[in-house]
């Protein structure tokens, strides 16, 4: 427990540093002493206005989204017992994309786009649940080794369907709207909204999953082993599915389909601090949030005034980091 607290504290400090960096960097750089004053005094000049109206909302949205994606990824990996699972493996990103792009095609505003993304993600998730409902019933356990592969395949097939629909929507769209759509698909935080909701859901989910940690550790060794060790496997799988789907849907509402955070963060943390879910899950929330916050800061400053989609940066940062961790360990 003391070790867990040390790890969380370290990651919380990292998060604070990432936040300070995100708030000070930009077209108008703000030095640290000025930053503190600007944070505390809302009406204290241009710096305060930039911090409160532009950078802080966007930073909170980035942190909340990143934390949710990393948490959802870690939960999906336990649910499917597959280290390659990510938050989008069940087709949630495709469903959200179809919703968001349809709203954009119809020329609806940002709020409608976000609502449609959230609805699309949840609808897609509900569809997977309905298609694979037998995998969430007790009978699936009688057949050890079943369950997860069929659930995974149902999600993958649905994702393929959504990809086809997204292509159709892009084909139908007028040129002027395509750019916004591509940014959404790559993952983009320039709207800078939904941060408070994402953070609140993130906090609630961490508190909700922490007591399940012990059982999740057992679940990683397979459903029959978990059942024989007294875990309510059927109920726990349902809970995991619902919580991970909710986290993914909320995350996609503020940022679109940001990739790699949900895959890379849980993995990197597992290699660094081990696979005890009670330590790992809160750590994922902190590290995922920090990573996306740093990535978004890079996305809006690296080629300023040109803004990049944050999903591009997470891919460019995430892939080499992950490969280095993976290959370094194999040595």
């Amino acid at each position, binding site marked *: 427990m003391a070790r867990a607290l040390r790890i969380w504290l370290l990651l919380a400090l990292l998060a604070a540093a990432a936040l300070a960096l995100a708030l000070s960097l930009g077209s108008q750089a703000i030095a640290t002493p000025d930053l503190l004053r600007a944070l505390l005094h809302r009406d204290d000049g241009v710096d305060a206005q930039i911090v409160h109206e532009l950078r802080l909302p966007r930073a909170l949205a980035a942190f909340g989204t990143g934390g949710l994606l990393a948490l959802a990824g870690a939960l999906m990996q336990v649910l499917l*017992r597959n280290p390659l699972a990510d938050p989008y493996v069940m087709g949630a990103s495709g469903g959200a994309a179809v919703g968001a792009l349809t709203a954009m095609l119809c020329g609806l505003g940002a709020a409608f786009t976000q609502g449609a993304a959230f609805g699309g993600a949840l609808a897609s998730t509900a569809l997977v649940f309905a298609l694979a409902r037998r995998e969430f019933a007790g009978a699936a356990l*009688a057949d050890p*080794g079943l369950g997860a592969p069929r659930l995974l395949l149902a999600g993958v097939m649905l994702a393929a369907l959504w990809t086809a629909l997204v292509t159709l929507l892009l084909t139908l769209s007028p040129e002027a709207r395509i750019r916004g759509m591509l940014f959404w698909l790559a993952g983009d935080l320039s709207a800078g909204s939904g941060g408070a909701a994402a953070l609140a859901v993130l906090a609630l989910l961490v508190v909700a999953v922490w007591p399940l940690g012990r059982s999740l550790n057992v679940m*990683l060794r*397979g459903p*029959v082993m978990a059942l*024989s*060790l*007294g875990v309510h496997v059927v109920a726990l799988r349902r809970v995991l599915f619902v919580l991970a789907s909710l986290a993914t849907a909320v995350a996609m509402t503020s940022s679109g389909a940001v990739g790699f955070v949900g895959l890379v963060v849980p993995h990197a943390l*597992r290699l660094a601090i081990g696979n005890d879910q009670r330590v790992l899950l809160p750590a994922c929330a902190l590290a995922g949030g920090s990573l996306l916050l740093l990535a978004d800061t890079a996305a809006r400053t690296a080629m300023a005034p040109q803004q990049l989609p944050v999903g591009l940066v997470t891919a460019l940062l995430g892939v080499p980091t992950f490969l280095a961790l993976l290959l370094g360990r194999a040595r």
Partner: protein
Amino acid sequence: MTATTPLLDASDLTLRAGTRELVRGLSLRVHSGELWCVLGPNGSGKTTLLHTLAAVRAPSSGRVVLMGCDVAHTPPEQLARRRGLLTQTVHDSFAASALEVVLLGRHPHHDRWSFDDDEDRRVAHDALAAVDAATLAARDVTTLSGGERQRVAIAALLAQCVPLMLLDEPTAHLDLKHQIGMLEHLRGLVRSGEHAAVIALHDLNLAARFASHALVLGAGSAVGGRTDEVMTESTLSAAFEYPLRRVRVGERWLYVVE
């Protein structure tokens, strides 16, 4: 619990796999101090029976009573303190040290808030030592050989500290020395009077040497009882559909394929 109350009382079990009926009307009583081996050809229902006795799957009909409670109406966390199951295959997708895997066996003895304590670690190290795997404690299970992984899985079952141990082919992948060592340890535990074990085995000679009781499955029938009464030439030959001879060597019976 008196000596006459069975630890496990299965009555009138019918087991199916898909549409195929494996066993009909099987009744089995296991008392503390008994070591049962389950014998039978491939597909005769050994694994299905063990999973049913462990209550990780339900029988098509019949009921299983464990220490006086019908398993169908007992919550999993209570079952987990009364019986443990060693499954035939373990597939590790995620890295973990052998000690961590064995510590999972302590899960039923904790509530959701507690972390493993020194007592858990002592039990886990003892369990690893019992299967000659003390030196594997820090190793990553995904890097272990099949036999080493099997010993770690058996250690996890031992660390669970349950009265009834159900083991599905525990000798699989083990070399000769570790097969004997593991079965001697189980027999020692069972003879101490607190435990019973039901073990699916393929090796008739190991079964005859270590088991007090045997259950022979084959061709839809099941014959159970004391090892020397059940493991006869005629019963085994009929179950395995292959002629077998039983010969006396010193104090022991040996089984020879014709």
